[in-house]
């Protein structure tokens, strides 16, 4: 089962690395990919971050100084904020991953009804700028809330704080866990579980001894991704956190409120610590347990669980989550049709007219840049997953670590890092569309990389080796063997990048320009001016646009990357993907 990397310990690993490095130098496509990826990461990840690091560790005269850092570490307020941010991240990560797992399991393993609906629900929350959920929670549960006040007559419910923040973050981020986990669960070879069942293990026993351990890398990845998202989330804690401050808000406040960019940068770098720990744990602890179940040997299609006592509780749980999501989004859609949200509920279509008139350009910009970024990011993510998942060579660790760094940097700092790095020669990018595309690509790519890597780890090397033995080059093997297997991972990566590009808030605030203004900064402004209904109209339009594009992606990927028809049915990837969303 294990893809043994030698029992001789460190020296063997080193030897293997040296040998593989040598081998790679003889594979031109592979070599060029690796070099290109390293150059890109150096330029667009390392360089801007080094700029911020230098900036945060020098005083006004340009001399090295740790004064700011020392000040932060001696202020108990910052340390407490730091602690609370971590606690929040852990709580959200656990709950969100649990919900994501239940959804992924119900959809891939059981015969629950309405799968298409559940799939849509499980991806819906990442389709809109997060602060819209905050608004829903205020309208539903605030002092004047539709539920608290109108329904129950409660007038003093304080909706701001950690509780609401957990709800909003879980709802916003569980789709990431779902997407990672459904990719993994559907690529676990059905015969493994069936074997357990055939030998008389109960469903429960099979789950705990086979399915769960096999999906553990996905669970940890899911937790990691959600944890990082929660950590760097800015718009939710800023809107609904009330007096509960997180580190990312502290960073933003320090920079834009106290005009102290230096202290803000130091605080931001502090945020990288837990993220990097989480990441390294995942990489070197979880991934060591290499699970290979896609062996390339023909297997039959999965038999879905149909027992009522398993199916229905899962279904009810999913439907309950779905109901909450629909309630929240329904509130937003409803809000887009009223005159003054929260005050005058006369129905009207004016909001859409005004939104289109004022925001069409920025909406189009967002779509175009998001598409470009998603395609580049999705492909680059697959390439990086491919060149890092199975091989070992000098420089691999650099690629692994630097490619996820951007994911963890708070958006505000990312924006500033990019201004510091690309506003002066040699490479001037500020004010262009390119800078936005680049930020989107490198910031959102880690999801593609993670889901690509976890999928690849389950594919036996023998498959590709067979292809190579038969005379295929590494590029050809990648395209014809790994890429089709990576279909789900590529799709998640693509969808995630596109959606995040269109819904990004804090990362782009410092990078949009008069020519390239984006729709989220427009919505952000509308919030500022209490034009909630118009903001709701914008968000509703965005969700529609995103759903349409996701439908197109889904159809395209199924058509282009589906396993060839002469492959017997049931080999490779078993999940029957509905082509309609």
């Amino acid at each position: 089962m294990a893809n043994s990397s030698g029992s001789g310990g460190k020296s063997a690993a080193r030897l293997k690395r040296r040998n593989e490095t040598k081998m790679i130098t003889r594979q031109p496509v592979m070599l060029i990919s690796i070099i290109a990826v390293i150059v890109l990461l150096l330029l667009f990840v390392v360089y801007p971050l080094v700029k911020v690091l230098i900036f945060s560790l020098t005083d006004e005269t340009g001399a090295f100084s740790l004064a700011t850092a020392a000040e932060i570490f001696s202020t108990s307020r910052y340390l407490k904020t730091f602690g609370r941010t971590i606690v929040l991240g852990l709580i959200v990560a656990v709950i969100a991953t649990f919900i994501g797992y239940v959804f992924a399991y119900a959809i891939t393993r059981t015969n629950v009804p309405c799968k298409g609906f559940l799939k849509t629900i499980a991806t819906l929350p990442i389709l809109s700028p997060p602060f819209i959920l905050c608004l829903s929670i205020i309208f539903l549960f605030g002092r004047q809330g539709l539920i608290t006040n109108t329904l129950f007559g409660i007038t003093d419910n304080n909706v701001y704080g950690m509780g609401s923040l957990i709800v909003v973050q879980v709802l916003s981020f569980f789709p990431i866990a779902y997407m990672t986990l459904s990719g993994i669960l559907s690529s676990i070879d059905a015969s493994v579980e069936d074997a357990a069942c055939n030998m008389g293990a109960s469903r429960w026993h099979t789950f705990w001894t086979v399915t769960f351990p096999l999906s553990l890398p996905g669970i940890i990845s899911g937790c990691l991704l959600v944890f990082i998202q929660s950590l760097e989330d800015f718009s939710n804690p800023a809107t609904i956190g009330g007096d509960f401050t997180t580190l990312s808000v502290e960073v933003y406040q320090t920079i834009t409120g106290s005009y102290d960019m230096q202290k803000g940068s130091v605080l931001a770098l502090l945020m990288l610590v837990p993220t990097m720990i989480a990441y390294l744990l995942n990489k070197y602890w979880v991934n060591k347990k290499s699970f290979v179940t896609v062996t390339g040997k023909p297997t039959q299609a999965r038999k879905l669980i149909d027992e009522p006592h398993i199916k229905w509780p899962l279904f009810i749980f999913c439907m309950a989550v779905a109901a909450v999501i629909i309630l929240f989004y329904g509130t937003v859609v409803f809000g887009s049709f009223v005159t003054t949200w929260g005050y005058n509920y006369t129905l009207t279509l004016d909001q859409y007219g005004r939104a289109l008139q004022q925001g069409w350009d920025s909406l189009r910009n967002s779509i175009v840049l998001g598409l470009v970024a998603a395609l580049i990011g999705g492909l680059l993510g697959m390439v990086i997953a491919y060149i890092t998942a199975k091989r070992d060579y000098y420089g691999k660790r650099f690629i692994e670590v630097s490619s996820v760094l951007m994911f963890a940097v708070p958006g505000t700092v990312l924006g500033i890092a990019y201004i510091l790095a690309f506003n002066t020669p040699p490479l001037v990018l500020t004010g262009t569309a390119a800078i936005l595309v680049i930020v989107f690509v490198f910031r959102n790519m880690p999801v593609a990389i993670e889901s690509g890597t976890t999928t690849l780890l389950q594919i036996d090397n023998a498959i590709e080796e067979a292809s190579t033995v038969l005379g295929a080059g590494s590029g050809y093997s990648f395209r014809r063997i790994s890429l089709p297997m990576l279909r789900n991972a590529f799709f998640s990566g693509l969808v995630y990048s596109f959606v995040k590009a269109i819904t990004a808030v804090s990362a782009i605030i410092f990078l949009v320009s008069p020519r390239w203004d984006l729709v989220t900064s427009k919505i952000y402004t509308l919030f500022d001016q209490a034009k909630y209904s118009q903001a709701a109209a914008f968000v509703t339009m965005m969700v529609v646009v995103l759903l349409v594009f996701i439908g197109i992606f889904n159809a395209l990927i199924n058509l282009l990357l589906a396993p060839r028809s002469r492959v017997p049915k049931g080999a490779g990837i078993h999940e029957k993907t509905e082509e309609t969303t």
Partner: protein
Amino acid sequence: MKQKRLLALLLTLVMVIGLTACGGGDDEAASGGGEGSGEEASGSNELTVYTAFPEAEVAYYFNAFEEATGIKVNALRLSAGEMLTRVAAEKDNPQAALMFGGSTDNYIAASNQGLLEAYQSPELSNTPENYLDPDGVWNPIYVGAIAFACNRDWFADKGYEYPTSWDELLDPKYENMVIMAHPATSGTAYTVLATLIQLKGEDAVWDYLKELDKNMSQYTKSGSAAPNGVALGEAAIALTFSHDGLQPTVEGYPIELSFPTDGTGYEVGAMALIKGGPADEQENAKKFIDFMCSAEGQNLYAENNSFRVPTNSEATPAEGLVTLDSVAVIDYDAVWAADNKDEFVAQFEANIASSENLE
């Protein structure tokens, strides 16, 4: 199957073409964004502006300016703090010629960091001296007093009168119903804090604020979140500037203002040239400053629901708008406030709203 593949290929092709088209856009923007490119070099008729004004409002000024001069304004809307951060980060190669709007708090900070180019419009001759920048860098264009922005419906429902003094805010009947932004993050809230320090003295003010804290629903992160909270009924009284407090009424929210009779502070809004901005836009930027400092420019405040009070004494304020003559304004010292900001905010955090004694 084959047909399906063909279709997919076609769709991909369409996407790629779409992308290439956009790539073209990239280059265009890249050359436009760089240091004053070819076609614009000789007397551009464009102007690039960072503004802290609401988008709908600012479009009104730009259109009027374009009509008068033929100069087209390209603007990006940011919050005042973001605008300053952005200008600071871009200082080696500024992308915009002008900072437009936002309180002098930001402009004093920007000026101290050496980000601004001194320019005083000749149109400032009708502006009272206490609004002017003693260092002659930025140009005042509007004022607004700190007000109590009250939710009309809540007060009608309870049968209360609007509060008219700072001490009335301490009344237990307002428990959890007062809202203001956090002085560390909002220029508005800092002006409130500095006003209270000026009114009550540097020692007594903290006792007052501790009392007020009992009625405070929360210290919001952004300045506008306070009046918006009142608009949505999350609080009954917001401590904010008059023009910001009235902003939600444009959408129909029930907000009315009252002013403290025992003295209130005010903000002066400003605009200034960014040092080292696009060279070909400098003349246009000055023209726009002159335009906004003139009576003609400031008369626009009355036409577009801005609720701003003109600084130019020749300009006519909007009908029904409370101007500073009818409010008990104190002699607010903006420079003193800006110079002591770090210390006062630190004290506020230590005494009142540190994260330790919250939750």
